């Protein structure tokens, strides 16, 4: 059984400059499991940007961060180990096999953290992606004891996509927690700011950042549009278009990049309205965070957002920028406060509630104790680990492998 002190290894590549909801979820997972007394090692490649946003959580200091390529030494001789694989899409792929080999070495249970799948992504996104980008997710799913999705919708699509899974693989979903402790501590104070948390760039078209340009209307007059972006920011030409559009309607543009959770929640709390025009989300933190802070939110109608946002989010048809603009105009002219859904959100995605659900899931995963891996499987993974490490290296180094 998992209790009281399972050894949990969370393998997640954290080096990307851009924010990733899946990796953010992985860190919250580490905090939650540590708070339940488990020995948690977070095997990243760089300490994540948002890691310190959780420094006030009771078990934060007990999470061991391991940033080297070689697998970490697990701290105890526990027979109760779990490897949680947080998947990524592009090379390096050697890490997948290193994580699986660690599981095989210690007889650990394997969990895939699933926050999207190609059948789901391609059914929602305006731009399709080749299914092979998710091949390694399937690889892990094929050998996993559990596949944990971050939404009911995600689990529904996962059930179809990961049809290669073992018959005893547990397929579940748990909505990730928001950083409620930091949200609570962030400064209060309303302004007329309109906030949008998004990403730009060719690989982020599904985030709908450019739709924002077309929803701006006279209602921005005298108000500020705040765009919160990842560290990669936006192209100068796009920024100029936003500035021009805001200026035409008598508004202003402000941009913040790579900010902390504290800054983020302070800005959400200062805002009069949040716009969230994403076409695809694995979970969709911003609308949930807006609801927690009592800020109205207009979002495209995605089933995943309805799971928690039914009563607190104004939904419009995907891509209907006129409807967004009309809804913004209406909400901004209202004087009555928005529906208070904070207690509902807290119940659903509060840290304690999340930790309890996650603990229960992992107990179920490890109910049969140590897992046996065949020599054949071990050899196969060792072989693939070698090959992928070389391919990872060569793809950066030799033109031959570009």
């Amino acid at each position, binding site marked *: 059984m998992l209790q009281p002190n399972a050894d949990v290894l969370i393998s997640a590549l954290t080096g990307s400059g851009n924010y990733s909801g899946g990796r953010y979820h992985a860190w919250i997972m580490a905090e939650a499991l540590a708070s339940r007394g488990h020995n948690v090692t977070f095997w990243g490649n760089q300490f994540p940007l948002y890691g310190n946003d959780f420094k006030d959580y009771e078990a934060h200091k007990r999470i061991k961060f391991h940033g*080297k390529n070689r697998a970490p030494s697990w701290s105890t001789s526990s027979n109760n180990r779990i490897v949680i694989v947080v998947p990524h899409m592009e090379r390096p792929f050697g890490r997948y096999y290193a994580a699986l080999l660690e599981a095989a070495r210690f007889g650990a249970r394997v969990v895939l953290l699933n926050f999207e799948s190609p059948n789901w992504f391609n059914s929602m996104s305006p731009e399709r992606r080749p299914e092979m980008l998710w091949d390694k997710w399937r690889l892990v799913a094929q050998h996993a004891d559990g596949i944990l999705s971050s939404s009911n919708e995600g689990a529904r699509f996962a059930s179809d996509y990961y049809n290669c899974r073992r018959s005893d693989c547990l397929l579940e979903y748990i909505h990730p927690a928001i950083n409620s402790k930091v949200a609570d501590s962030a400064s209060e104070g309303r302004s007329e700011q309109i906030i949008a948390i998004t990403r730009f760039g060719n690989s982020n078209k599904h985030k709908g950042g450019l739709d924002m340009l077309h929803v701006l209307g006279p209602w921005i007059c005298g108000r500020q549009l705040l765009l919160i972006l990842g560290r990669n920011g936006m192209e100068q030409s796009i920024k100029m278009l936003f500035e021009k559009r805001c200026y035409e309607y008598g508004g202003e543009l402000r941009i913040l990049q790579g900010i902390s959770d504290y800054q983020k929640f302070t800005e959400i709390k200062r805002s009069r309205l949040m716009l969230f025009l994403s076409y695809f989300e694995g979970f969709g933190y911003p609308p949930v965070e807006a609801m927690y802070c009592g800020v109205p939110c207009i979002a495209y109608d995605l089933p995943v957002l309805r799971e928690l946002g039914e009563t607190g989010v104004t939904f419009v048809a995907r891509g209907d920028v006129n409807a967004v603009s009309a809804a913004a105009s209406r909400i901004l002219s209202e004087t009555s406060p928005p529906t208070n859904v904070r207690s509902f959100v807290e119940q659903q995605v509060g840290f304690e509630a999340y930790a309890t659900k996650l603990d229960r899931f992992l107990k179920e995963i490890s109910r049969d104790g140590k897992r046996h891996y065949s020599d054949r499987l071990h050899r196969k993974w*060792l*072989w693939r680990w*070698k090959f992928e490490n*070389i391919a990872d290296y*060569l793809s950066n*180094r030799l033109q*031959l*492998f570009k």
Partner: protein
Amino acid sequence: MIEVGVWRGDRAIQFLSLARNLTWYAGFDLFEGMDSETFASERMGACHPQSYEDVKQRLDTASNGNCRIDLVQGSTHSTLSDFALKHAGTFDFIYLDGGHSLETIANDWNCSKQLMSDKGLVVFDDYYLNDTTRGSKPLIDDLLSDKAYRVRFFPVVEDIIDDLQITMVTVSRASENQ
């Protein structure tokens, strides 16, 4: 590219599909010519010999047609040495995963030094941290003090079946500033 130790051709097929710009693949192996004595002395583990014809057929099927594929059967003590004389400085990538004896690895490296291009890269498989009686560790550890070459280690994993700590190593010329 050159691969020493083709075995079933699995890795070659992967390389052929990954390296779209690959123009020449040369693979060296004993194939079915490996006798039991060599199998034991080269510590080949689970890599039981495969037939040359079977492997050739697999590789030809996997090829995109733009890449020349040569499979050379025989001991690298003679085949790779002869090949190096004819094609010195030609290859950008050489993968050494043939015999595991110290002598064979030393021979394969000596030939690779001649075969690698100025920007060439040699990857040694089978660097065992906890076994110096076989594998590439003794040779690589000597190379670490050779200023002519740059050595880079991959991460280490544990082979629980053979109780080995394994990594791989890349070697390039120190003058190649990458």
